[in-house]
């Protein structure tokens, strides 16, 4: 455990130093070694094309950074990124081709559990490690595949747990008595709220509203009308991005403002959330996330700087950080085992903890990460980590103010 951890940290420190000296040290690697080829399938079109684009930035930024510092084991890194058009058939084809036709050395994951799950099975069949940034839905861990490593602090189901822990840590008089749960029928949304609900109910917070709505829901007024009718103290939204905006917009126009509002996705988006619901309405809304720009995780400052240097100013999608972290972890593990052998990589990753911009990660035997996410809150128009205390930059402000309108 500790050796792996220190190994990771050491590698990281070395990398960070190299990033600092990026301009001066041009690659000195030998030209007669072949590059390390990493195969990745991403969606250039379809449902997952947006997050895929963010993941691509993270992967490419990492590869550029590594190459600028001599690569891994003296070999350059070359990404082979192919398009899966957000289709499971194509994702299976792509990983088949990458592994058996192009014989890439390593594969990284695509975006979304829906694609990662079938892809992980292909990788498993050929004994490849499947280091993936975005396949953390429950289905993927139920498979008992030992080659999966989900590069985020916590499985998706647990990303609301940090909020539940925070609420349950409040003194009794500040604690909410009743709760409402609007939940999107989606593997990354409803289960989060369900996990929170179980914890709350066990702690005596009454459920007065629970509603699952389908993915194509465009009309949130009906849901909010009912929610407002039940008038819970706390609203825990198991949401994805689009429906989170729709839900909050409807809450604003229905003038329903609960004392606490947590959304599993959407509210953690630094740009689109104020953009879609109005900047004056954001304050007091909670969200959770695996990564934030201001976070003090290993190498994060360097990553953020490199990102802005490459893609200009503006907020960074956490998916980019997740993808970048996959690269960091690969680099660490390869340095440690001194080989590109996927079997050795898998064995090594199951031991110890590995440093990345996502924090220090470790996994159980089926690839579930063992950490927890960060709780963030909109304070003064900015997204601020507020819990757990070890990473908080400010104390949470409660209760939520009324909508500005």
């Amino acid at each position, binding site marked *: 455990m500790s050796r792996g951890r220190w190994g990771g940290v050491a590698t990281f420190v070395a990398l960070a130093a190299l990033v600092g000296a990026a301009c001066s040290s041009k690659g000195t690697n030998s030209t007669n070694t072949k590059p390390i080829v990493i195969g990745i399938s991403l969606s250039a079109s379809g449902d997952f094309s947006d997050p895929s684009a963010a993941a691509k930035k993270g992967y490419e930024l990492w590869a550029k950074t590594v190459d600028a510092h001599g690569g891994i084991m003296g070999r350059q890194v070359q990404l082979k990124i192919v398009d899966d058009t957000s289709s499971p058939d194509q994702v299976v084809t792509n990983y088949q081709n990458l592994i058996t036709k192009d014989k890439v050395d390593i594969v990284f994951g695509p975006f979304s559990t829906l694609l990662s799950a079938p892809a992980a099975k292909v990788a498993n069949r050929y004994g490849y490690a499947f280091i993936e940034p975005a396949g953390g839905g429950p289905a993927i861990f139920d498979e008992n595949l030992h080659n999966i490593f989900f590069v985020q602090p916590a499985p998706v189901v647990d990303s609301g747990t940090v909020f539940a822990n925070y609420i349950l840590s409040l003194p009794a008089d500040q604690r909410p008595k009743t709760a409402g749960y609007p939940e999107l029928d989606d593997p990354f949304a409803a289960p989060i709220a369900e996990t929170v609900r179980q914890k709350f109910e066990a702690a005596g917070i009454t459920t007065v509203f629970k509603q699952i709505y389908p993915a194509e829901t*465009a*009309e949130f007024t009906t849901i909010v009308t009912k929610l407002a009718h039940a008038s819970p103290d706390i609203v825990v939204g198991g949401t994805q991005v689009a429906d989170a905006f729709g839900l909050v917009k409807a809450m604003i126009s229905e003038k329903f403002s609960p004392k606490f509002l947590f959304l599993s996705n959407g509210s953690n988006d630094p740009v689109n959330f104020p953009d879609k619901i109005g900047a004056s309405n954001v304050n007091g809304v909670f969200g959770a996330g695996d990564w934030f720009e201001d976070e003090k995780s290993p190498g994060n400052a360097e990553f953020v700087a490199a990102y802005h240097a490459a893609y200009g100013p503006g907020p960074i999608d956490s998916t980019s950080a997740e993808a970048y972290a996959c690269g960091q972890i690969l680099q660490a593990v390869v340095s440690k085992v001194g080989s590109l052998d996927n079997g050795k990589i898998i064995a090594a990753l199951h031991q110890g903890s590995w440093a990345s911009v996502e924090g220090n990660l470790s996994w159980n035997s089926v690839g579930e990460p063992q950490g927890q996410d960060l709780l963030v809150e909109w304070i003064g128009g900015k997204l601020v980590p507020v819990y757990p205390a070890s990473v908080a930059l400010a104390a949470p402000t409660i209760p939520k103010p009324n909508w500005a309108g």
Partner: protein
Amino acid sequence: MHLLVQAVILGILIGGVYALMASGLTLVFGIMRVINVAQGAMVILGAYLSYTLFSSVGIDPLLSILLIAPVMFALGVGIHRVFIRALRAESGEEMSLLVTWATALAIEGVLSVTYTTNLRSTIPGYAQRSWIILGYRVAEVRVFGFVISVVILSALSLLLARTRFGRSVRATVQNPTSAKLLGVDADRVSALGFGIGISTAAAAGAVFGIIYPFNPGSHYDLISRLLSIVVLGGLGSLGGAVVAALLLGVGESVVAVMISPSWSSFVFFIVLIVILVFRPQGLFGVRERGAL
């Protein structure tokens, strides 16, 4: 009870906007027996145009309809020229499904390249205000959207009832062959009809963009609803489309409140299938009598 009334009010307001979107679809079918599967994509295109005008020039999205509708009209006539007319002579109605589907994909593709697949929404000042009438809360933008839909639909039915073009359209809807014999220029009527059908879609798109967030892929959900509406109302019947749209709006909204949003569109689809078992021609459709 309060919830139910609130749901019905909301349903009517939503239904009005759907009626506007569906009106063009049913009109085009009536005139040329073409199901324009790209109608949903046209709505989204309209939403993007009004979004662009609002966010870059600051034109009010509802006013922008006056600019967008003529542009989309021209686009409609163009599409008719290039694709639909070429098809008519050669092959059956079914091929028009494929052609307009391809058109929808092309529009989605162009929008994805131009705007990316990020969700957008048009937020004018009044987007989040609401009135309270008799204790029921009604969002202002929905009322505006509904009123605009009613205005455009009334204008459309006046156009059909009172003008020479309208008479040609009605003649063509009732009997294409004899309309031709009576000297109706079928090609011109089709082109104009297609243009009008698409510009109503665009007008509805401007309203849609204020009420709902959208991205280039939003047209898939829309078109399934629009098709159900026009089939339920009876293909080619404008009044039928309006009634079916209101039915859809109220039905979905009531089911969402009383049962669950998960089942709301399901219930509508089932109603549609049941009605079609008894009336294959839809509520207000005329059974195709062919040469009998």
